[in-house]
């Protein structure tokens, strides 16, 4: 899917109609070289541990996934059925590249990997996630995380 225009008309219409908030402030955090950064994943794929609470429609909270979790212990309960899940079903790295991040740390390309990663469920209006996101920022900083990669689905 190179761009929205290549999608079937019904999906083009849906994606074009998604409301996108206008954010006036333009924050830009500078940091050191990548090899000194401590990095966490924040996903919106509705991922969680098997033992954790599933996501429901309108859920604005996040779930914690400890770094190094066995991929077999991770499930997806995103409420949308309108995206491909078959790739994730074959290989978790297409949405949650914990293994690649660990390899990059091992190779010295990044400084270190966070103790935990996090997932929201992206069908919720992101403005309703603001309080949880700002609270999560504090949690991340308490783990000495300085940089985050955000992954949609």
């Amino acid at each position, binding site marked *: *899917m*190179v761009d*929205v225009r290549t999608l*079937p*008309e*019904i*999906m083009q219409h849906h994606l*074009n109609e*998604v409301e*996108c908030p*206008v*954010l006036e*402030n*333009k*924050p*830009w*955090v*500078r*940091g050191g070289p*990548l090899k000194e*950064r401590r990095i966490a994943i924040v996903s*919106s794929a509705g991922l969680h541990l*098997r033992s954790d609470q*599933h996501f429901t429609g309108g859920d604005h909270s996040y779930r914690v996934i400890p770094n190094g979790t066995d*991929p*077999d212990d991770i*499930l997806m309960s995103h*409420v949308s*059925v*309108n*995206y*491909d899940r*078959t*790739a*994730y*079903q*074959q290989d*978790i*790295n*297409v*949405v949650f590249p914990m293994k*690649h*991040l660990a*390899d*990059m740390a091992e190779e010295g*390309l*990044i400084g270190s990997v966070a103790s935990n990663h996090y997932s*929201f469920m992206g069908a919720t209006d*992101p403005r309703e*996630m603001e309080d949880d*996101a*700002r609270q999560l*920022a504090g949690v*991340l*900083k308490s783990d000495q995380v300085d*940089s985050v*990669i*955000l*992954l949609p*689905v």
Partner: protein
Amino acid sequence: MSVLAHYLEEEGLATTILSLVRLHSEKVAPPRTLFVPYELGRPLGPPNNHALQREVLEQALGLLESNDGPSLISDFGHINVGAEPDENWSPPATAFSDLDMADATDVARRLKDEIETLLPSYTLAKEARGRSTVGIAKLTIDEIADHILSFLDGSHELSPREDLSSAMVLRFGVDDLKAFYAEAASHSGSPSSWQLGNWFWRDTVFGQILISLRAAAMDHSDKRFNIVGSKFLVPRIWIDELNL
């Protein structure tokens, strides 16, 4: 994701995002975005192509060292690898031909046979991958099949879980059984999502049950079933493709 990045950046964390919809990234304009040309659902590209996934990840993280703020959108240069069909892939055999949805007993038998046929491939795939994504409903595959089939004989009001409504168990059970089918069918070869979808929605008993169930649930007197029927059973793209 773009809005979440904005909040995190405001709180002092440097962020970088993979974007699957360039239009949305352009509108929200978060700090750092790598636009990737992949299907919704696979931001790092095709499954099992770890070299390409690493390249995507490294380019996205590399934006953290850029000073071209306050809003940077970069494009991942590779073509849409992974969307092409695997011509050597053979879809699993199914019991779909001459299916009469009005014959509930035969439909039930054929669904059970189809699941039985797929089970060895599912088991091998799970062993090879070291994981399965089945488990949201917290029921066995047989229990899920029985709950789905209960909609054919009218006994579907009873939920097999005390903590979830029958409608929610239907939603999660359908997700689980779809995952069971996809994991089994993709055990051999590298089928594209379109190949798997074509097989599932055109050639499987389960796919046909979901198409019928969608129509029945949307006409149900209980709103919860209306919602599950309209939103959670058949993807929008297949509703369009099959003229449902």
